[in-house]
């Protein structure tokens, strides 16, 4: 009887085929994920290499579809998804991150006995969640997508059974994540309470039509939402999970977390906080400001004295979240596009760096201390060169993408009058130079203690590293095209 009643719903309100077609890229990822899951059951162990190809193919197809299919500025499926340049940008960014992660993890998985089928499927599902986060035009959809992504990543973190740190990391991540989800959800509830809707556009309408001064319900909601997002990007003081989890997780997952999760969260940050909640800018700016400064300072300060490169990269990713927040604070279009551009650069730099860490992995164990890098500079030139590029780019040296990105971020901050913020960021950059260069010191200026055995030659991994390194160079030397892309993407939000 219930079912009949549902059927009574006016068919016109049901999504048309065209709309579903527009959702094709997202669905395509799901299809790929399910295919992988199914095939995993039937394939013999030695044939499981095919899974990588299927996943990559699926992701690439999704990307291609998105490029071909997506027009600009449409809301589909009851206006809960928005298809615009911004979605397009993040979709492809996230797909690229996923592809690179999969490519670089091929040998890692083999060495560590992590179940290949599930790993691929989970990466795909998480990517699906992330893309929805970037596209979501509805807070509840956003929350669900975020949970899809999170649960996928919790599991990925804990997948490596032999390593007890992985279980611990998963536990920490999960507890923190669930805790933060609670706050996020509470924030959504309050916003819903204040505005009567979870749809971003309707919230936007409400904000533009009603006085905001003293509307504490709304502000509290926004703040709690902010905290939830801050947790996801590992902003201080909601960052404590990050170093432990990044260190404990399998390296490919760490890279994926550091990049894709952060990117998706920033997508939400831009679409929700920067764009739809922009009328609240005055109320939120101080909090954002404080969080940004704390984030970069704490991230850089604590990265300084780490002895594990992996953990250093974890702190460095915290610091970078702080830099990215500068763009959010700037609040103008330039700030938004700076975040997008920097996100792109950051993705390449960080994935590349974690890729090199994976290459150093030995005999099923992570080999991520600074010592592991000692003396590889003139023995394994390609890896060392790539790592140098990543480190220099992370530190913000020209002519690498990291510099261009930072430049753009600072520029947006100065333009919007936040010169002090950018000065603090710059001082932080100086701090960061110390620990990034320490890796280079290890590689080129110190002798290895005979630990560095011949690394596994993994064509996939090396390809991924080469792609990221070249990408960084490209973004540093000829950034015009991606800059223009990021600018168009941000403009499409309006």
């Amino acid at each position: 009887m219930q079912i009949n009643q549902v059927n009574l719903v006016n068919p016109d309100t049901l999504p048309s085929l065209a709309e579903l077609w527009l959702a094709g890229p997202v669905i395509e990822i799901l299809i790929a994920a399910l295919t992988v899951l199914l095939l995993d059951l039937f394939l013999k162990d030695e044939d499981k290499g095919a899974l990588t190809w299927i996943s990559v193919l699926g992701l690439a197809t999704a990307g291609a579809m998105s490029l071909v299919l997506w027009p600009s500025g449409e809301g589909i499926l009851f206006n809960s998804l928005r298809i615009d340049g911004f979605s397009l940008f993040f979709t492809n960014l996230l797909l690229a991150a996923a592809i690179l992660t999969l490519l670089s993890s091929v040998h890692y998985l083999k060495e560590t006995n992590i179940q290949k089928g599930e790993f691929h499927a989970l990466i795909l599902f998480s990517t699906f969640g992330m893309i929805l986060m970037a596209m979501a035009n509805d807070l509840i959809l956003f929350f669900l997508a975020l949970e899809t992504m999170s649960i996928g990543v919790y599991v990925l973190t804990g997948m490596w059974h032999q390593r007890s740190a992985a279980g611990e990391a998963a536990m920490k991540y999960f507890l923190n994540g669930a805790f933060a989800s609670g706050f996020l959800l509470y924030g959504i509830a309050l916003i819903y309470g204040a505005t009567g809707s979870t749809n971003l556009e309707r919230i936007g309408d409400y904000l533009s039509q009603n006085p905001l001064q003293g509307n504490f319900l709304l502000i509290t909601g926004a703040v709690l939402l902010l905290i939830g997002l801050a947790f996801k990007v590992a902003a201080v003081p909601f960052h404590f999970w990050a170093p432990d989890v990044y260190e404990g997780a399998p390296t490919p997952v760490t890279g994926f977390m550091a990049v894709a999760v952060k990117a998706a969260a920033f997508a939400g940050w831009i679409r929700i906080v920067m764009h739809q909640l922009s009328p609240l800018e005055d109320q939120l700016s101080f909090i954002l400001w404080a969080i940004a400064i704390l984030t970069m300072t704490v991230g850089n300060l604590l990265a300084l004295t780490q002895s594990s490169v992996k953990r250093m990269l974890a702190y460095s990713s915290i610091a970078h979240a702080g830099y990215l927040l500068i763009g959010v604070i700037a609040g103008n279009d330039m700030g938004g596009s700076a975040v997008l551009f920097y996100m792109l650069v950051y993705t390449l730099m960080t994935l590349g760096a974690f890729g090199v860490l994976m290459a150093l992995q030995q005999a099923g164990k992570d080999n991520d201390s600074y010592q592991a890098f000692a003396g590889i500079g003139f023995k394994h030139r390609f890896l060392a060169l790539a790592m140098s590029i990543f480190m220099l780019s992370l530190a913000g040296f020209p002519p690498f993408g990291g510099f261009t990105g930072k430049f753009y971020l600072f520029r947006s901050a100065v333009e919007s009058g936040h010169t002090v913020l950018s000065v603090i960021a710059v001082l932080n950059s100086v701090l960061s130079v110390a620990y990034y260069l320490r890796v280079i010191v290890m590689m080129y200026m110190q002798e290895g203690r005979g630990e560095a055995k011949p690394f596994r030659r993994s064509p996939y991994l090396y390809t991924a590293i080469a792609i990221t390194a070249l990408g960084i160079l490209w973004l540093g030397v000829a950034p015009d095209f991606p800059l223009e892309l990021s600018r168009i993407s941000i403009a499409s939000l309006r």
Partner: protein
Amino acid sequence: MESSAVMESSSLLRWILLVPLLGAVINMIFTSYRDRKTAGWLASIALAVSFGLSLWIWFGLSSGTVLNDTLFTWIESPPFKVKMSLLVDRLTLIMLLVITGVGLMIHIYSLGYMGKDEGGVRYFAYLNLFIFFMLLLVLADNLLLLFVGWEGVGLCSYLLIGFWYQDHTNTIAANKAFIVNRIGDVCFLLGLFLLFWELGLKGIWTLDFVELKSHVHLLSTGRITLITLLLFAGATGKSAQIPLFVWLPDAMQGPTPVSALIHAATMVTAGIYMTARLHFLFALAPATLAVIAVIGVLTALFAATIATAQNDIKRVLAYSTISQLGYMFLAVGVGAYSAAVFHLFTHAFFKACLFLSAGSVIHGLQGEQDMRKMGGLKSYFPKTYWTYLIAGLALSGAPLTAGFFSKDQILWQTFSHGSVLLWFVAWGTAGLTAFYMFRQFFMVFHGECKVNDHLRAHIHESPTVMTAPLMILALGSIVTGWLGLPEYLFGSAWDHWLEPVFGTQVNGHGGVLIEILLMLLTVGLAAGAIYLAYRAYSPPWVGGLPYRLALNKYYVDEVYDSLFVRPMTRLADWFAQIFDMAVVDRFVNGLAARVQASSFFWRRLQTGNVQHYLLYFLAGTLFVLGYYLF
């Protein structure tokens, strides 16, 4: 250099300069391929050419003509512009002849003196280089080019003092000479800057002597006083006056011909030359002139007293040089430029002769310089003895010698200038001069021979190549004086010769009678002093406090050491060892360390306990919410 002087261009001038430079360069480049003898002859010939050219000019230069040779623009930074340009007037010509003439003698002498030294080639290269810079100094037509020569001769002096570089005392002396000179040079530069900009304020942008001369009257007296004082401070360095004289005695560490050429005849007189060259400027600053006169006479007295107590044959002569330079500055101070230059001229001869004679003795004694270990050498050095005597007499102002006329003129000018006190001190100093000179003479050539037996067997008179220049210089020590006879005799050819440069010197009050009286007083004093020296080879006050003071050079070196050198090195040491590391660098490194320490500190928050993390999370939330509550 009257304003009416005719300017003539002559490209001859540059060759006077370039030939010695060429000699120096050739010798320098081929140091290792050339034997000493060829090098020496090459150097001497180069100088001879310069000398010849100078003579040529001397014969050709008519009264009131100034020769000019412009090579190229050197430094240009509008409105500042300085040319590489040479100028010869009569003053320059005198200097040219002194430098090339006396220089030639000393070169020839060096052939014998340095003939066996292994660094002979280098020596002659340096010597020629020195001549080049000295000629540049006197030929320069502007103040900056003069300064180039000024510093250049300092360099050569440095190189030559430290010629025997393997001995630390030599090179320390060389450094001292250069650095003390530099202090003066800096003052000189500052004076030059001041002059340039002050004139610039009046719209005149120049450092050319000719143009300066016609424009300096635009400046205020106060400014000129400051400028001239600074320039004079430069001169005290180069010409070894109080307070910067300390380097000259030490400079005697160089080879003796070098002492003769650089530290007696030419370089040290650069200060005199400079003031004479800029007499139009100094003339406008009576206060400066007074300072110069006082410093000059004090230096003369001071150095002379020290000379009476010294036992090193060359040091006596060195202090004597300082003292004589003091006389010259006294002359400058009382406005008697012509007399100053005249004394410079005669002094070049007899002091060079003295030094070379002393060198001859040292050479014969295989390097012994302590007069207490000499004595009775008359028979061993028959020629040197006589040249030494003649030059010594000239220095002491014995009648009819060169020194007699030139020194007398200074004394008379001082007196007639109205400064009786200055005259009196200068007069007394003349007595001291005769005393120390003949104390030295008697200690070296008379009395009992204290040379040890081993050495005595090898004592020999110097070869002709050394004694011939001695004799020529000795001759010069007598006849050059006759160029400047007093008014009451035949009048001074010298003053007439220099009239185009300095104008007519007006020597006012007094009169012939007083002049002759004063002259007699001087001669008498000198004679008495010589007698005293003959009686007691050492001063009667040996052992007394004044003697000890004089023997130890009034502890000036020590005083400077504790006043300037040691505080500075201590300060430098403190800067280098403590301040730079413990303050400046510590600040930088300390900051880094502080950051690192705080990194370790804050890392402790990351306990690994997940519930701590959650509490921090909560605390963050509470703060954020609290911000909106309050």
